[in-house]
């Protein structure tokens, strides 16, 4: 069953009414083309500002009906899990209450269940295969703009499945962000801290990440979309052009996409495929690529990792694939994948260092080492991968114990100060404390993966005591973790 726009809005309103401490509902600044309000939810628990943020949007394409329902249900389940201390059970995947607690207390989770309410209403009342919004395109009998071609990223470059023709179902619109529905998404990216973004579509069982317009390459940083003309209504003229992405970001996209895929498979074994958007077909002006591209086009904007998830399988025809008679199993898959994305959006160092300690400078120093040193070699990136894997597993353990969290915060702070001066020697006491706390965490986590990762980290750390920070970094970028 699928909810109407009014019913989706009603559920958001009920959540905010009954759980105002966990759900804030607000109307986005622009009405839809036909004058409908568009609502966003902010879901969270506890106090604290400047959290990392996740933005989930659904219903961009009108006929992809499952996803607005999945998103509003996920909001309800997050809050209920937090309130009751209950697990979220999604088929064979159980999301522990402790994991949900961490998500709720550390993230701002923004959800726009139904980005294109006019389109959804049209699907339910006129044409169940309608895709676009309901823009009346002047001087033509064709209506609608494809909202997922309307963003300001190579807007109007007719690459692959993008068109300047109003009669096309992939019509990019008369200008970038010409549509109020896309401006609402931009508003959230402009005004909220959004670290991770997912635009949920259907169908094909894919997890897509940038780039969507051409193949991605990691070797020639002069190849940037910012150098290309927009609004040409032609494909990119150089058929050999490939878009640059840093190796670190490519690895990050691939890693997180794989974790989303794994979390989905855990539900009932569906095998989603992670790939670049271009691997599906060429596109420009999409929400998820725009969300990621913003920080490249304008370095003053916050970096957002943007994904598109294509939920649900092909079931023999387009109609039943877009809106199957029983969408419930697919919604379970979707929710599990989105929870995995949220989990990957947490940065333990930032959380412990800034939220618990207020040590912004120390965390900045560690972040610089991650991005400017470790990310530059495959071995260094393997260390980043190891850390990102470990943090997801151990964070609930650390945050559940105030004394442990305090010790962790102290170590982060001291490590951050040490990292600020690469010529200084690493105090043997800092190494000993770090090894001790990592060992404690590994013992409590009772997870072989954590034990193996901690052993690898401790091996590198124990060789670092009394030596300059630079020596440790040289070792890390030369030799990855032994696992």
């Amino acid at each position, binding site marked *: 069953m699928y909810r*109407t726009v009014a019913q989706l809005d009603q559920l958001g309103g009920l959540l905010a009414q009954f759980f105002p401490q966990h759900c804030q509902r607000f109307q986005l600044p622009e009405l839809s083309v036909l004058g409908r309000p568009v609502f966003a939810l902010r879901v969270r628990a506890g106090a604290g500002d400047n959290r990392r943020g996740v933005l989930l949007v659904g219903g961009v394409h009108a006929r992809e009906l499952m996803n607005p329902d999945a998103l509003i249900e996920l909001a*309800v389940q997050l809050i209920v899990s937090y309130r009751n201390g209950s697990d979220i059970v999604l088929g064979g995947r159980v999301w522990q209450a402790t994991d949900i607690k961490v998500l709720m207390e550390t993230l701002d989770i923004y959800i726009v269940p139904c980005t294109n309410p006019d389109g959804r209403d049209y699907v339910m009342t006129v044409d169940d295969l309608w895709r676009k919004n309901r823009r009346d395109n002047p001087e033509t009998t064709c209506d609608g703009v494809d909202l997922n071609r309307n963003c300001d990223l190579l807007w109007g470059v007719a690459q692959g499945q993008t068109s300047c023709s109003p009669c096309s179902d992939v019509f990019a619109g008369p200008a970038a962000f010409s549509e109020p529905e896309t401006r609402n998404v931009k508003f959230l990216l402009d005004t909220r801290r959004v670290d991770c973004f997912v635009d949920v579509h259907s169908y094909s069982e894919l997890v897509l990440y940038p780039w969507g317009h051409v193949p991605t390459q990691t070797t020639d940083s002069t190849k940037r979309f910012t150098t290309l003309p927009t609004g040409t209504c032609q494909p990119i003229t150089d058929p050999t052009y490939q878009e640059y992405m840093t190796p670190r970001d490519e690895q990050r996209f691939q890693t997180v996409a794989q974790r989303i895929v794994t979390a989905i498979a855990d539900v009932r074994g569906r095998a989603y495929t992670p790939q670049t958007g271009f691997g599906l077909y060429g596109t420009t002006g999409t929400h998820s690529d725009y969300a990621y591209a913003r920080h490249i086009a304008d370095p003053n904007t916050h970096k957002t990792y943007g994904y598109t998830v294509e939920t649900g399988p092909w079931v023999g*025809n387009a109609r039943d694939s877009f809106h199957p008679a029983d969408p419930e199993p697919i919604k379970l898959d979707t929710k599990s994948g989105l929870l995995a994305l949220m989990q990957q959006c947490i940065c333990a160092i930032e959380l412990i260092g800034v939220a618990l300690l207020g040590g912004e400078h120390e965390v900045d120093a560690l972040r610089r080492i991650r991005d400017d040193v470790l990310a530059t070699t495959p071995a260094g990136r393997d260390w980043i991968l190891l850390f990102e894997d470990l943090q997801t597993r151990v964070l609930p353990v650390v945050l559940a114990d105030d004394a442990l969290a305090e010790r962790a915060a102290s170590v982060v702070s001291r490590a951050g100060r040490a990292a600020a001066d690469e010529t200084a020697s690493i105090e043997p006491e800092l190494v000993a404390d770090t090894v001790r706390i990592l060992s404690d965490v590994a013992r409590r986590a009772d997870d072989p993966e954590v034990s193996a990762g901690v052993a690898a980290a401790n091996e590198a750390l124990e060789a670092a005591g009394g030596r300059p920070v630079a020596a440790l970094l040289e070792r890390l970028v030369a030799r990855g973790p032994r696992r």
Partner: protein
Amino acid sequence: MRFEATVHATTRSAELHAVDSLDLDRVPDPEGGVRMLVGPEDLTRLVAEGYEVRVQSVAPVAPLDPGLVSDEADVRAWFEDMTGDARGEG
């Protein structure tokens, strides 16, 4: 009337990727091919361009099956069922 159809290149047509320039409604295809929702005029145009078009099914313009739309009572009942304990604590 509207059809769901797959499109295939022939010796008389352009390469298959060129079909993108015809501004038709392409939907994902399980085999990675070109699958579209097209009206009769579109079908004619595709054939005139030299493509082979295989109509897979009729896809009439019609609203969503009303049997797939939730009713008001179900929505409220679902919310109350899901949140009962959590609201009780509030």
